[in-house]
């Protein structure tokens, strides 16, 4: 269980999150959606202990501010919106950085397994800096997966915190990565993902927190959040759910099947 209560975050004089409460269950994929600058990344940073905040965050019944970094690393992996990398590491070596931080550090076989999960089977020997943006993002996901490879252990459920895991990816890899997150949740782990693509969110999320201007507008199931009224207000843009355009082309991830053509 992840429970964040009364989270307030200030950057200088600006208050970016106002008394936000948020929770996520293991076994579920919880999406955080909202417009640019609404505070999604900040909320994720608060619940991973990265941004200093008022309020309390409990992960698996532990207050994260009192937990040691390595205790947290054993039960949760964090994929940031962007990750810089100094020095010419190979793809395998980047994934190994994740592996050796987790509880399955001695299982080297996880490295190729994680790479194959994100569709980078033959990339192990390539240099990270020489990959495309989307490939780099998937290597980072493989690194995080290698850190918390098992979705659940005696220590309780494990967690993935993903900030826009699919924003740099093509449609096939978007589906692949969302399926990884889905499988992790189905196997008993918890997933919290910041999302921009509302279609993918509708397809894969069990719970959605809609955030706007540093406040949670609502947190509930996709059916209840993805409504004309709530979305139009939050995004300040009139949207129409489940309404095909009268003409023109549209492509929905809902109708796509990976690896088939």
């Amino acid at each position, binding site marked *: 269980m992840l429970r964040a209560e009364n989270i307030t975050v200030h950057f200088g004089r600006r208050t970016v999150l106002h008394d936000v409460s948020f929770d996520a269950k293991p076994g579920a994929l919880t999406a955080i959606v909202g417009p640019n600058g609404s505070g999604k990344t900040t909320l994720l940073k608060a619940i991973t202990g990265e941004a200093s905040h008022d309020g309390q965050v409990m992960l698996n019944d532990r207050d994260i501010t009192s937990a040691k970094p390595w205790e947290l690393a054993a039960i949760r992996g*964090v994929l940031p919106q962007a990750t810089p990398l100094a020095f010419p590491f*190979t793809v395998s070596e980047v994934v190994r950085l994740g592996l050796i931080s987790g509880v399955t550090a001695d299982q*080297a076989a996880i490295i190729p397994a994680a790479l194959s999960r994100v569709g980078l089977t033959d990339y192990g020997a390539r240099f990270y*800096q020489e990959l495309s943006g989307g490939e780099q993002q998937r290597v980072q996901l493989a690194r995080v997966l290698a850190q918390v490879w098992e979705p659940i252990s005696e220590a309780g459920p494990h967690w993935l915190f993903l900030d826009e895991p699919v924003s740099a990816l093509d449609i096939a890899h978007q589906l692949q990565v969302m399926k990884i997150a889905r499988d992790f949740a189905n196997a008993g782990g918890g997933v919290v993902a910041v999302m921009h693509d509302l279609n993918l969110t509708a397809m894969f999320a069990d719970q959605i927190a809609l955030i706007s201007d540093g406040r949670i507008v609502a947190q509930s199931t996709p059916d209840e959040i993805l409504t004309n009224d709530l979305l139009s207000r939050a995004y300040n843009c009139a949207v129409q759910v489940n309404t095909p355009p009268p003409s023109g082309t549209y492509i929905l991830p809902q109708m796509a099947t990976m690896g088939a053509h």
Partner: protein
Amino acid sequence: MAMATEVPRGVYLAGDRSHQANRLTGALLVVLVAAVLASLAIGASGTSLWSTLWAFLRGEDLSLRDRVVLWDIRLPRTLMGALVGAALAVSGAIMQGLFRNPLADPGLIGVSAGAGFGAIVAIVLGGLLPLALQDVLGYYLVPFAAFLGSWASTIILYRVSTRKGHTSVATMLLAGIALGALTGAISGLLVYIADDAQLRTLTFWGMGSIAGATWSKLLTAAPLMIVAFIAAPFIAKGLNGLALGETAASHMGIAVQRTKNTAILAVAAAVGSAVAVSGGIGFVGIVVPHLLRLAVGPDHRYLLRNSALLGAALLLVADIISRVVIAPAELPIGIIMAVIGGPFFLWILLRRRGILDM
């Protein structure tokens, strides 16, 4: 998630260079032993000492002259060269990991200047300390002051150039220049007020050489360097994590602040004591880790120990060259390293331009 299948023994993962790094450690050990023996055997004393060395290693009695040359001159000098080389290379590798940049070299960004400043202050103003304190510190005063100087300059540099876990190399280099200018100015002032005896010490010290190595010098500098060598393996994993930035490192379970503090103290100890006894030999800290990263990758668990071995061997070889190239006179080793290191550094800049965010 499906259990990963076992990787069979002896089969290596594509892109995993750890076994090459381990093999390189073995090779470097052999090279270092060879360099130590060569450094003991080759010198300006006219006769080659290979046969003497061989006799010494077999425990035979030596002539007095041979014993003095071998035991009182070459052995401390060799050990000092190996220690200083290892210290400079390891601190280069640690600094580069800490600053997340392959150009962070103690000599380049003012850490050696800070250490030198500490040493000069100790030499000139040490006499002003209460006698009791002078007694306690004794021979250790200069290395200790150099340690404080390099520690302070590392901290200042890190604070100035690192914002929110991102180090700006431009700021780092410029701050290094500013710091170097400032310490240089104050050092100049101190030289101006120094008396004759102090001036003599300063001149000897400033020549940047390990030619004056004695057992007592070695014993004053070795402890701090050894402390740094002992600390290094404990921060290797942390430095690996830092390559992904401070936040990612902390999410991977690394105690970031502790890693940074240990790294800064280890660098200060190693550079401080190396500068205190050798006057600051440039480029070792940048050439050695860079070559090793090219050869077997940036993983600090192997990089640090391989840097120590290669740094030691490189400095010994440079020292041997300095002894024979214009024998019977000696070239300062700083010149040899600059001749090797200067072009190498330019080459890094040319190669790296555009790939790394500088």
